[in-house]
């Protein structure tokens, strides 16, 4: 199977007036269709840099990044624009690309309906709760129909209860749309509950320290919340915790 995303020996160094900071060193990994990859690492190890590289916002100093899917990037905060309605916010991507067709608009209406945001279509972002805002941000990212979604700690700005619900919602949306995802997080439980494979990074400059394939025994369909009940969950947690703290 052809990977959607293939990184080979990628290096990246930040240049500033004060000096240079190697952020990514000899990084290699792949993401296959319908796969969710979790990236976990010590704070400040260059996780966000990796997403910027994949999204093409910055260029690697050396190495190869091959992408064969449209990429959607979901930032840590929702960044809904206060001066636009929710509907205008979620159609911002197509609007920027001058592709706001009537089909896109009805797609947006359908998504708003599906995720309980229809009554807020004309509302300003300030009137929405944290969880609703995050869902709106997701729909905005999906509006450009990406095949691979980059998630940069997308739940970290939410309170714990909302975070579990939104995590389930986003998981379901991605699965039904047959998308792949790269989830960057510092939360071990979140990574295990959400992902099929987890790579643990070394501290800066980031490279892959260890890879974990997550296989959970569950009676019913997997959701991030139910995944936390799986008997293997605790073992994965301890192993990853160990890797992070060596």
């Amino acid at each position: 199977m052809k990977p959607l995303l293939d990184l080979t020996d990628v290096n990246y160094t930040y240049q500033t007036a004060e000096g240079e900071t190697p952020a990514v060193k000899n990084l290699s990994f792949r993401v296959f269709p319908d796969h969710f990859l979790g990236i976990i690492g010590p704070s400040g190890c260059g996780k966000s840099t990796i997403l910027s590289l994949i999204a093409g916002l910055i260029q690697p100093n050396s190495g190869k990044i091959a992408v064969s899917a449209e990429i959607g990037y979901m930032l840590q905060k929702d960044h809904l624009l206060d001066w636009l309605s929710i509907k205008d916010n979620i159609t911002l991507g197509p609007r920027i690309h001058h592709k706001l067709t009537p089909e896109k608009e009805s797609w947006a209406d359908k998504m708003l309906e599906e995720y309980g945001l229809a009554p807020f279509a004309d509302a300003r972002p300030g009137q929405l709760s944290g969880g609703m805002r995050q869902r709106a941000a997701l729909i905005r990212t999906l509006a450009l129909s990406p095949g691979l979604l980059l998630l940069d700690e997308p739940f970290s700005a939410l309170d714990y209860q909302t975070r579990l619900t939104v995590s389930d919602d986003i998981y379901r949306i991605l699965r039904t749309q047959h998308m792949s995802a790269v989830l960057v997080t510092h939360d071990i439980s979140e990574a295990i509950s959400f992902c099929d494979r987890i790579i643990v990074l070394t501290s800066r400059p980031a490279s892959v320290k260890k890879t974990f394939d997550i296989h959970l025994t569950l009676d019913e369909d997997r959701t991030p919340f139910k995944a936390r009940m799986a008997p293997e969950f605790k073992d994965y947690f301890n192993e990853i915790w160990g890797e992070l703290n060596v």
Partner: protein
Amino acid sequence: MSDPTILYPVSNTSREEFLAERKKQKNFITGMRFFILIFILAGWEIAARYHLIDAFIFSSPTRIFKVMLQMAADKSLFYHIGITIGETLVSFVLVLIIGTLIAMLLWWCRSAADILEPYFVVLNSLPKTALAPILIVWLGNNMKTIIVCGVTMAVFSTIINLYTAFIHIDSDKLLLIRTLGGTRRDILRYIVLPASISAIVSNLKVNIGLCLVGVIIGEFLAANAGLGYLIIYGSQVFRLDYVMLSIIILCILAMVLYQLLYFVEKHYQKKQ
């Protein structure tokens, strides 16, 4: 020996008492404001009547009022006020357009902004009144000079303020547009301009006063109409009634224009 027990007093002010107290305080402040105004006017009038001051050079409220009625009757009052308001509004609109456009260009071309920064700082701190005589020589003894005078008064601070507002927008918002595949133009259109509207509006409030100052200075030097002209004319022919009347009208005008923009700002904030 044990410590003595202290019992705190209770205060059971009712809602009605609280509101009444607040209202009383508000009335007191409004009342005092009017009292000061009446005190000044009455003091001025009495001092003039009893020759404590020379009414010829200090004028008096009744004399000013008479001149006002007389000038209102022959419509010259409205003519002068209209000229000053018109010039102020034209220079105000020009400042808004020129200032915003240049600030946008500087945002677009960061190197240009860095290169030009010291020049803008110098032009902004320069007392703009010093430019007025040059403007007359360059542009002639006409309304163009007066309007440009009003523009120079406010345009440099507007450029600096708006440019500063533009570059201090949350950089994550700019990143958002880039993650959606947008260009610099999209960032300007969807983020920078809408996010700066409140900065632009609050800048307007300052500008209207500055433009009025510039226009009056311009009228001092190059005009045959307007309140600034009336002040200079009055002082030259020793009709201090004209001067005082013009100053009082200027006070009212400045207040009205400021309040107008204050309402614009409030309206905008409510819409947000």
